[in-house]
């Protein structure tokens, strides 16, 4: 029997086909995918499902909403779990958007860390300058969006210490990173100031090896692996949304754990 609530004019089901790749990305989220229908999208967003671009923008709007919910839930003082040094995986797991054979090592002697944006002192930093700052070590889990994880031991300067030292505006919204492997990234200021967010220069007590981001990489316990850029060459403090490599390809920006 036809439902009394069925609209007279039903949207064309091929609209879902146009977004097959988006829907496939939800394959491990059977629950959500099961509930994803044209009707649900319309209810959520009021968008016009006859225009494919409006479906994509609706999905992105949901992702941005999720980012802001995560930012609200983030507790700047709550620490992620830590582990004994005996559990450190040596060597750590390599990952990038390319294979290891395409890694381009960075020369630590000529490397400089550039600064821009809402920062009082924009003088570039050398590796020696950075290593002269207070250092801490943490043993934390690296959790990748792909589903794997490992426990790693990282040493470096808390990003908070560095931002305070260069006179960054700590009320700004974003801290953005540029890297030698063209992997731009950015995080929210609250996460940048978290005590488990490091500019890491060592792994397992040894100088960071080339494939893992020598001389300096970001390592934070409160976000997924892809929010940890390696081979950092510049830091910007800004109020304009900087995006990032995977974020511009649809990954969530906040990516909290």
């Amino acid at each position: 029997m036809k439902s009394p609530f069925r609209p007279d004019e039903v949207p064309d089901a091929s609209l879902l086909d146009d977004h097959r790749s988006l829907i496939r990305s939800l394959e491990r989220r059977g629950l959500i995918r099961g509930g994803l229908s044209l009707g649900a999208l319309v209810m959520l967003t009021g968008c016009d499902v006859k225009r494919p671009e409006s479906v994509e923008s609706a999905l992105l709007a949901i992702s941005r909403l999720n980012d802001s919910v995560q930012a609200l839930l983030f507790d700047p003082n709550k620490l992620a779990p830590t582990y004994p040094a005996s559990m450190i995986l040596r060597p750590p797991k390599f990952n990038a958007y390319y294979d290891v054979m395409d890694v381009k090592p960075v020369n630590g002697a000529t490397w400089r860390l550039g600064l821009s944006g809402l920062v009082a002192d924009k003088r570039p930093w050398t590796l020696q300058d950075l290593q002269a700052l207070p250092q801490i070590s943490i043993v934390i889990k690296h959790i990748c969006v792909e589903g794997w994880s490992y426990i790693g031991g990282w040493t470096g300067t808390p990003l908070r210490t560095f931002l305070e030292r260069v006179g960054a505006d700590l009320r700004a919204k974003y801290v953005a990173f540029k890297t030698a492997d063209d992997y731009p990234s950015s995080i929210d200021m609250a996460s940048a100031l978290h005590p488990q967010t490091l500019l890491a220069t060592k792994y397992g007590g040894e100088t960071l090896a080339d494939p893992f981001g020598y001389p300096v990489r970001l390592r934070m316990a409160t976000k997924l692996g892809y929010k940890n850029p390696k081979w950092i060459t510049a830091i910007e403090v800004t109020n304009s949304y900087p995006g990032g490599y995977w974020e511009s390809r649809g990954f969530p920006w906040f990516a909290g754990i």
Partner: protein
Amino acid sequence: MVRRNMSGVRSMRMRSICGALVIVASAAHAQSTTPGGMPPPPGMSLAESAAMRFPQPVRVGDLPGRDVLRPVESQDVLGHVRQLVRDSKGQIMVVIDFGGFFGFGSRPIAVPVDAMVLVGQDMEVVAFTPEQLRRFPTFSPSGTTPIADDAIIKVGLAKPSH
């Protein structure tokens, strides 16, 4: 440099990120845009190709028991590391309990360490296909010397294959 996804459509695998609703747009590629664990280029020796994979120090005693995977998206488990030995020529070999089913029916084979890579907690055989490995002779310890657990050797890396 243009990097192409060699494996065609590769679904993006999003794991749960907090409880809030996450919907991800644009899903043509996963974390990977080039595959990891590629075989050595034609004509290149195992040692030369291993040297291109940024060999990293690893404690020999940390390797036994690790899964040995096939470097494809399905990451089939080919076997498990049993021990490391030097063969009569001094070459480091990884003895793998190869094949079998739930621990039964496997047999040991010795694969040059330069034919393998470390992928996090696992290892992969990148220089030989499963078909080639099936034709490897069953490992015999005679003429080989075990390598001490505390020895440090260098093994190349690869990015995950999924």
